[in-house]
């Protein structure tokens, strides 16, 4: 990830069946979206291990979003029930680590909700822009330097 202060590192995990398709729809519908985020597709939102998110923040992420199917719509029936419990607990943990709660977000986006995807991504990127680089970027530099 970039260590350049002007460039933000925003990571969005999308599940294959809903959120990714929603993002795709937002794209083909030519909805206005910022370019400052990078997307990682997983088969299910439950594949997003909390360790991945901690790892992302360690490596300079300024914001991380996890997007999956709405409760009740999971392709694997209950994957997102696990996701929502994990992510809720992770949210508490990240706050204890001192991160602004806005840097981490969980969203439900269906395959037909291109509009919603564009809206939440716009909102999220703007919020992260307001917050600026994550404090973990500087901490990491100090540590790497010895």
């Amino acid at each position: 990830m970039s260590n350049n202060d002007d460039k933000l590192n925003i990571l969005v995990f999308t599940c294959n069946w809903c959120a990714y398709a929603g993002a795709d729809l937002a794209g083909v519908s030519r909805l206005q979206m910022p370019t400052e985020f990078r997307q990682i597709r997983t088969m299910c939102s439950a594949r997003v291990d909390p360790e991945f998110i901690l790892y992302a923040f360690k490596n300079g992420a300024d914001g991380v979003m996890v997007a999956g199917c709405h409760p009740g719509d999971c392709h694997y029936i209950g994957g997102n029930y696990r996701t929502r419990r994990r992510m809720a607990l992770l949210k508490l943990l990240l706050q204890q680590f001192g991160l602004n709660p806005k840097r981490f977000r969980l969203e439900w986006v269906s395959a037909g909700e291109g509009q919603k995807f564009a809206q939440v991504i716009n909102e999220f990127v703007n919020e992260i822009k307001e917050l600026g680089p994550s404090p973990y970027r500087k901490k990491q530099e100090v540590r790497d330097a010895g």
Partner: protein
Amino acid sequence: MPDKKKITLALKRGASCVGCDIAVVNFSEKLFELIEVADIVFSPTLLDVKYDDLIKMPDKSITIGLYHGAVRNSDNEEFAKIMREKCQILIAYGACAHLGGIPGLANVSNRAKIFETVYKKTFSTDNPEGIYPQTEWTDEKGHKLTLPEFYDEVYALDDVVDVDYYVPACPPTHVMNMQILNLIKGWVEGKLELPPKGSVIAEEKTLCDECPRNPGKGKKIKIDKLRLITEVEPDPEKCFLEQGILCLGPATRAGCGAPCIEANMPCRGCMGPTSRVMDQGGSMLSALASIFGVSENELELSEEDIEKFVSQMKDPLGCFYRFSLPKSLLHRVVQDK
């Protein structure tokens, strides 16, 4: 096999509670077996020695050095480096040297806040001028006094020097010490090879894998309430998590002999994570979240409801990283906007 019949051993403490020195004494009568193959040449707790004695020893003249305690100040770091120079094999002994341990929990704070609490705000402190420890001070006659520098965060041993082996736990248990004793004896006698550099001298499995209370593979645990160990009388045979009591077994390395479980106390994770995960806290978080039961009215629950439900877990950071915060992915708490 070492080049001599008898090896030498040194023990040095950093930011340590000295419990690890006592753990060595806990070799009990087996200590004599250790002394048969190893001369203890330096140990401020066990022998009448001075730091200068260690400094004067030739480089690499000590076969094995055990360093216990975390690295909290410049003195700890300086002696970690001296130990590295003097010892052929350097072992991080105990949770503090391995992962930062209990002193590593200070990484929820920083130097400025700690100084303010300790030297200003505590009830018994009278310090109207706000004098904080200085690393150097010279009196009117020109005598210079120095103090080590207190670091802004706590480090584990391998953050400051190269480490050959790790012996986890707070402190290493008798079972583990016997394993080290057999390894050292076998090596000195030419019967055993040392493990690969960087090894953690313990198991690769999780504590649950070895726990007699494990409800068995495939059996799903589901809880809807977390209970504090101080509030309930735990069933002496049932898995703690199944009883709704936080137990770090799923995220903790086996090898301690599970003395806590035996004493009907849940595991707090002092052995640290296994090598298969990056972060003990992240691993425990997943384990705990997956046993928070899915309710019948799941579809009616909002994310706020779920957040309220999981907030039964008080202080996840302190409980999940009790012994490993400096070696967690994020190392320490930061301040954000």
